[in-house]
């Protein structure tokens, strides 16, 4: 794109409309750095073992508790890191209980994608939407968290019905779990306290970033810097080296490609077609967008998908309200349900197939390495119904909240 001058380098790096979204890049870098410190403290292992003991060694209870724990952690931290650290402990717990790890792993994937939908920082699509539409952390909490909590609640009921009879273990096996001491997981208690303190500061910062007029990226970078400072580490490059640079450069490259596509007018052409199809009806547009996003995200990665859809939504808005500009256009009351539909569809659609989201690919890969293959079909058996269910719930939610109650 740059070499062919479809997009000038200046546009790619310095123009908001076409170029790299540095908010997204630096928010990711900041959060990744914080997690890199946190994961060395043994925090995730502690939480997983603690959950198993809270469930008193009962497989069904553990399944449900780990589901909620994974969802909450994914809402606040990166999905991939969460599953990467919870999954090995899950294997150990299942080994101790002599139950199949497959339901646990699939439910954790579902939890990571559902939980990630809840907040601005939970899932990359949300980060990208927030940055483009200039939405803040609390906007996501008000609009997406309620429906996510509701979906989690439904999932818990389904798990109870589905696995009640199938997950059984002996009293001796339960004792194995109860004998584990979760405190052994904590490798560095002081560093853990510091990490959790910084995480609390960062989350508080996110809550107020709209009021403070600070970008989330600023807060995340501040947190990362603060943590590196107070952790008194002598070699911060260790934490930097573990930042997922391929992901970061993937984003940069993706933004440039999408910028070029926008500039040549392909996105404009698409938005005209869509508006033509839905005859400018935004309710129809949100519903179509939600289902289309869900299906698309199940088949392709939701990150490039959302990167393309963002300018498309903005372009549609420009056509509907040609005289409104800036934040008033981006957050036009009638446009908001469209953004939420895009977020819900893209994030929840990730559950539709083993390749729907990065967390899915990673967990399925880890499981195979651990000698427990989860077949494509087996995944779909859980993934498709759960996706259909969560999207249906989301659809009813968007319809009721924004078009019936108009709250």
């Amino acid at each position, binding site marked *: 794109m740059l070499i062919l001058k479809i997009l000038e380098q200046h546009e790619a790096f310095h123009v908001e409309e076409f170029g790299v979204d540095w908010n997204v890049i630096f928010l990711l870098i900041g959060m990744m750095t914080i997690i890199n410190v946190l994961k060395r403290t043994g925090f995730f292992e502690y939480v997983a073992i603690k959950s198993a003991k809270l469930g008193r060694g009962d497989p069904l209870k553990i399944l449900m508790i780990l589901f909620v724990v994974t969802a909450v952690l994914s809402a606040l931290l990166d999905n991939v890191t969460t599953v990467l650290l919870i999954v090995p402990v899950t294997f150990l717990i299942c080994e101790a209980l002599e139950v199949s790890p497959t339901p646990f792993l699939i439910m954790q994937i579902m939890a990571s994608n559902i939980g990630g939908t809840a907040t601005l920082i939970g899932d990359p699509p949300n980060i990208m939407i927030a940055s483009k539409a200039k939405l803040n952390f609390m906007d996501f909490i008000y609009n997406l968290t309620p429906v996510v909590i509701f979906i989690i609640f439904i999932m818990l009921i389904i798990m109870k019905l589905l696995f009640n009879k199938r997950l059984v273990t002996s009293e001796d096996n339960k004792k194995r779990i109860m004998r584990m001491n979760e405190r052994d997981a904590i490798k560095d208690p002081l560093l853990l306290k510091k990490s959790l303190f910084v995480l609390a500061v960062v989350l508080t910062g996110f809550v107020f970033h709209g009021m403070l007029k600070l970008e989330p990226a600023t807060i995340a970078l501040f947190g990362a810097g603060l943590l590196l400072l107070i952790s008194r580490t002598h070699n911060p490059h260790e934490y930097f080296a573990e930042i997922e640079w391929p992901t970061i450069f993937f984003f940069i490259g993706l933004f440039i490609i999408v910028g070029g596509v926008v500039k040549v007018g392909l996105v404009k052409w698409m938005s005209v077609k869509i508006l033509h199809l839905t005859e400018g009806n935004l309710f129809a547009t949100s519903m179509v967008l939600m289902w289309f996003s869900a299906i698309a995200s199940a088949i392709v990665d939701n990150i490039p998908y959302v990167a393309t859809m963002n300018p498309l939504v903005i372009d549609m808005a420009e056509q509907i309200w040609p005289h409104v500009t800036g934040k008033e256009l981006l957050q036009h009351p009638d446009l908001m349900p469209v953004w939420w539909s895009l977020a819900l569809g893209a994030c929840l659609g990730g559950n539709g197939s083993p390749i729907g989201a990065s967390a899915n690919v990673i967990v399925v890969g880890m499981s195979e390495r*651990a000698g427990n293959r989860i077949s494509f079909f087996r995944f779909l058996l859980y993934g498709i119904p759960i996706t259909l269910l969560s999207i249906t719930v989301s659809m009813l939610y968007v319809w009721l909240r924004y078009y019936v109650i108009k709250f």
Partner: protein
Amino acid sequence: MKAKDIMEPIKDTLRPQTTIKEAIKQMKLARRGEQRVGVKGMVVLDSDGNLIGMLSIKDILRAIIPEYMTMAELGEFTWEGMLEKMAKRVENMKVEEVMTKKVITVNENAPLMEVADIIIKHNLQRVPVLGKDGKPVGIIYVRDLYWALVKALLGEEV
């Protein structure tokens, strides 16, 4: 002195298709010199006598430790009887699935300094010695180098 002067000639070998359970039995009965003392590592040869791998107790332990334990620090959360149970799981695996395939070797005419260098650089317990035709003829253990030192520094014959 050269590698061939201190090596122990190979008497017992493993085949790639042997099961781990059988391999453990053979290791237990293997000879070192004239005595059946058991060894902690054996060479694996194909039907033509070519070296295709080494199987050591560490390789077997690596196969027994579940993969997920290498993904995180979980040692504190294991239970009594776990190792024994996991060992049962690998007993019917084949030697070739577990063995180290990239074997570091020395030539029979290599000077002892080369042998010592290789053992230290690669953190080995033993290194197979290859003859002129490229087939293994012996094994040098760390202990064999120790006896070479005894001879060099204390002037004692072994």
